[in-house]
């Protein structure tokens, strides 16, 4: 890891460790879940060059999976998260096989269509309780002895999951696999002519992205003790695009910053009601016009260091 990224990693970890002293921990946990979600999304578009417009389906599916497992089947939290994640991974495999051969905008459209189908399924299915969602999901005892009802226990768990997910993504990006992924993003035809079956690499990237988005969704469900339609809605798929672009597409830390900015905006502008969306839109347009590399992308460019 280059020094600039080591420092950024230290800053990020320190922030999430110290911030709960002054900011609501629930807000920070939400931010970490969305940050992981955005990082997972960024793995696909920023390094694989694939724009999915249906990533909410993985967040939502993992959320429902974890909530159902914890509440109805009485799974302990670690298995509830695993189950939700596995559900998202399976969905990733199926939708990936359907979508991955399409290019560019067609890929985006197919993922959107598949995500809409999942949304309507969750809207109709009995186990999701429609508009109400699955409420009062028990957080349970992690590994049988850590009571997650305690906010600090929950906070530490979310922090650990976020950091592990973040570092795993970092590893993927810099692995031999990540190297091929970058080559495909750079010049797909050339990658094929060198003998790479690019569809398989894309599928694995998509699967990893879906799985990690699932981890974020399942974790978020335990934090809020709720799985709802919001997470599976198309606007959530749009929001993660926004977070990633705002923070810096294809940067390592950008999606985290982007998620923090968007979540903060939503939080502090909440009193504006329906205007939040408009304010968000305006801020987004301004950002895209003034710093096109995203916040972290611009900083990295200015420092001439990878971030």
């Amino acid at each position, binding site marked *: 890891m280059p020094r600039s990224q080591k420092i950024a990693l230290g800053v990020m970890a320190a922030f999430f460790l110290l911030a709960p002293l002054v900011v609501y921990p629930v807000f920070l946990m939400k931010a970490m879940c969305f940050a992981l979600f955005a990082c997972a999304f960024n793995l696909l578009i920023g390094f694989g060059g694939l724009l999915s417009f249906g990533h909410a389906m993985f967040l939502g599916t993992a959320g429902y999976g974890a909530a159902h497992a914890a509440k109805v089947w009485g799974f302990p939290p670690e298995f509830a998260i695993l189950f939700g994640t596995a559900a998202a991974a399976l969905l990733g495999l199926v939708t990936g096989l359907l979508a991955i051969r399409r290019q560019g905008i067609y890929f985006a459209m197919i993922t959107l269509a598949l995500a809409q189908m999942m949304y309507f399924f969750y809207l109709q299915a009995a186990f999701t309780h429609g508009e109400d969602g699955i409420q009062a999901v028990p957080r349970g005892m992690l590994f049988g002895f850590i009571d997650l009802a305690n906010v600090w226990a929950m906070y530490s768990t979310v922090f650990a999951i976020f950091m592990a997910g973040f570092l795993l993504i970092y*590893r993927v990006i810099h692995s*031999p696999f990540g190297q091929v992924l970058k080559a495909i993003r750079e010049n797909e*035809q050339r990658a094929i*002519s*060198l003998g790479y079956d690019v569809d398989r690499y894309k599928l694995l990237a998509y699967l*990893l992205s879906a799985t990690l988005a699932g981890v974020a969704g399942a974790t978020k469900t335990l934090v809020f003790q709720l799985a709802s339609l919001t997470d599976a809605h198309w606007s959530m798929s749009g929001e993660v695009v926004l977070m990633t672009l705002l923070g810096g597409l294809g940067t390592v830390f950008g999606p985290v910053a982007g998620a923090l900015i968007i979540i903060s905006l939503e939080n502090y502008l909440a009193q504006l009601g329906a205007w939040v969306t408009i304010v968000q839109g305006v801020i987004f347009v301004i950002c895209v016009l003034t710093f096109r590399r995203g916040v972290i992308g611009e900083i990295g460019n200015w420092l001439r260091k990878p971030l």
Partner: protein
Amino acid sequence: MPDDVILETKGLTKEFKGFVAVQNVSLSVRRGSIHALIGPNGAGKTTCFNLLSHFLEPTRGQILYNGREITGLSPAGIARMGLVRSFQISAVFPHLTVLDNVRIALQRKRGGSFDFWRAGGVLDELNAKARELIESVGLAELESAAAVELPYGRKRALEIATTLALDPEMMLLDEPTAGMAQQDVERISALIKKAAVSRTVLMVEHNLSVVEHLSDRITVLQRGEILAEGDYKTVSANPEVIQAYLGAGHG
């Protein structure tokens, strides 16, 4: 098929919505030779390459490589069999460094490219070989430059180094010297000649002096069909070939 033929096509045809770009081309490339495919612009040379590498599906016809029918294989599969193509527009990975460009090819031969859990450091074992290749095309001092920053001629050199990294049995080169300064043309020609010592090269080339100096055999294509075939002397004396070239105003 005789043993010394590495690549053979039979009645290869490609139609685009009624327009015939390649028509009934039966080509036979001898193992270890440098074979040039020439012809005026729009003759169907690039389309031929796209068919041979299966980037395009032939409408009709067969392709045999080492006696084996490869007509239905995937483009990546054909590359893995040792038949590797380059592109008419230079094909590099623009935002990767020169070193990383070559390493991507070496990495494919090494295998283990689905290992998403492994640190990238495992690929450092490829550096020595990559540097050797980069050196051989005269890019040694540029190894950490992004490919996009190289001048055109250097990009083509990088592309050849990347192709050579796969140690292909046969290379398809599409206009390797197009748009190059004379000095680069000489460098690339020498490189192709060196590379061809242990492999077969089929190349599209407009520079007739390059064709004359390098190729053992020449096939002339016009409007998708083979017009003439033979060594440089035979082909260049053929009145139809002269006519085709003068007619198209091409040299």
